[in-house]
């Protein structure tokens, strides 16, 4: 759904741009290609890494880790799993929902969802290439730390 909207916006913008100025549109497409080609190598690294990781850490394994552990250790485990995996939301939310239905803790699930979205260990090399080592590592460690606070807060609100 959101991808369709993205395409509509991109095509509309491209068409508007082409009507106003052909040369500028061509320059924009050239820049788009250059930016893409510049990061393609890193993209491929991420793709291979994720494919290997998800083969070893498949959804069944993730469910086991998130479902069985509880307490503080469980929250830490859930955050770690979220940090190193790369799963789109539309796959992650149903997994999280079924785990909750099976009795997994809300706090653990919230920790997993939060760090999954904000922390990207496999995409770190890419992030470093754009923003530098310091800020990329800073952003990810802060996001990891916050995923705990977020988890406790969500767990508390849901328990009210």
């Amino acid at each position, binding site marked *: 759904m959101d991808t369709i909207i993205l395409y509509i916006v991109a095509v509309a913008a491209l068409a508007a741009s082409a009507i106003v100025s052909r040369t500028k549109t061509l320059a924009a497409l050239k820049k788009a290609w*250059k*930016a893409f080609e510049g990061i393609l*190598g890193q993209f491929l*690294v991420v*793709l291979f890494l994720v494919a290997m990781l*998800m083969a070893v850490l498949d959804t069944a394994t993730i469910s086991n880790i998130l479902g069985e552990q509880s307490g503080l250790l469980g929250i830490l485990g859930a955050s770690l799993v979220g940090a190193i995996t*790369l799963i789109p939301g539309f796959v992650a939310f149903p997994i999280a929902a079924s785990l909750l239905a099976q009795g997994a803790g809300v706090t653990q699930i919230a920790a997993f969802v939060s760090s999954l979205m904000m922390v990207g260990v496999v995409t770190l090399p890419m992030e470093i290439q*754009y923003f530098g080592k*310091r800020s990329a590592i800073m952003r990810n460690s*802060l996001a990891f730390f916050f995923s705990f606070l977020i988890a406790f807060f969500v767990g508390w609100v849901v328990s009210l």
Partner: protein
Amino acid sequence: MKKGLRRYAAAILMGMVFLALIIIFPDYREKAGKSLLGQLGTVALVLPPIFILLGLLDVWVPREKMIRILGEGSSVKGALVAFLLGSFAAGPLYGAFPFAAVLLKKGASVFNVMIFLGAWSTTKLPMLLFEISALGLRFALSRLAIDIVAIVFIALLVKRSFHEDDIRRLQTQIP
């Protein structure tokens, strides 16, 4: 050519590791292959419009305008624009990096760019609707509320760790 090859060295190496893994562990072959194809599909589907928009943004929005809307002095309004821009985006977070880099290069403040990244990662609107239906209103809305707080904190802290050199390097890196 040599330079091009060096840029892909890591990818080629990782590809070989991938091949080695599925040769040594045939059990992983199917899952790894499926995952690779799935990821490739996402990349092929989501990235073209993102990069086209990035190119158009780079060509059409002048630096002065970017500074006025998202630059240092843009205050709360700038942060709000950055937040909405990220929330209406689509695609995985790594799609946001090149886009954020162009914003930064054009003069958006580090704080606003980090707000944009934070919003892209956690407060995307279509995902929120999906989260509500999967995990419940209370879970999704409380996460949204605390996430906004976290995003602002992270942006403030990352801003302090950002070097002038990083922006200068970005400007030479992106033509």
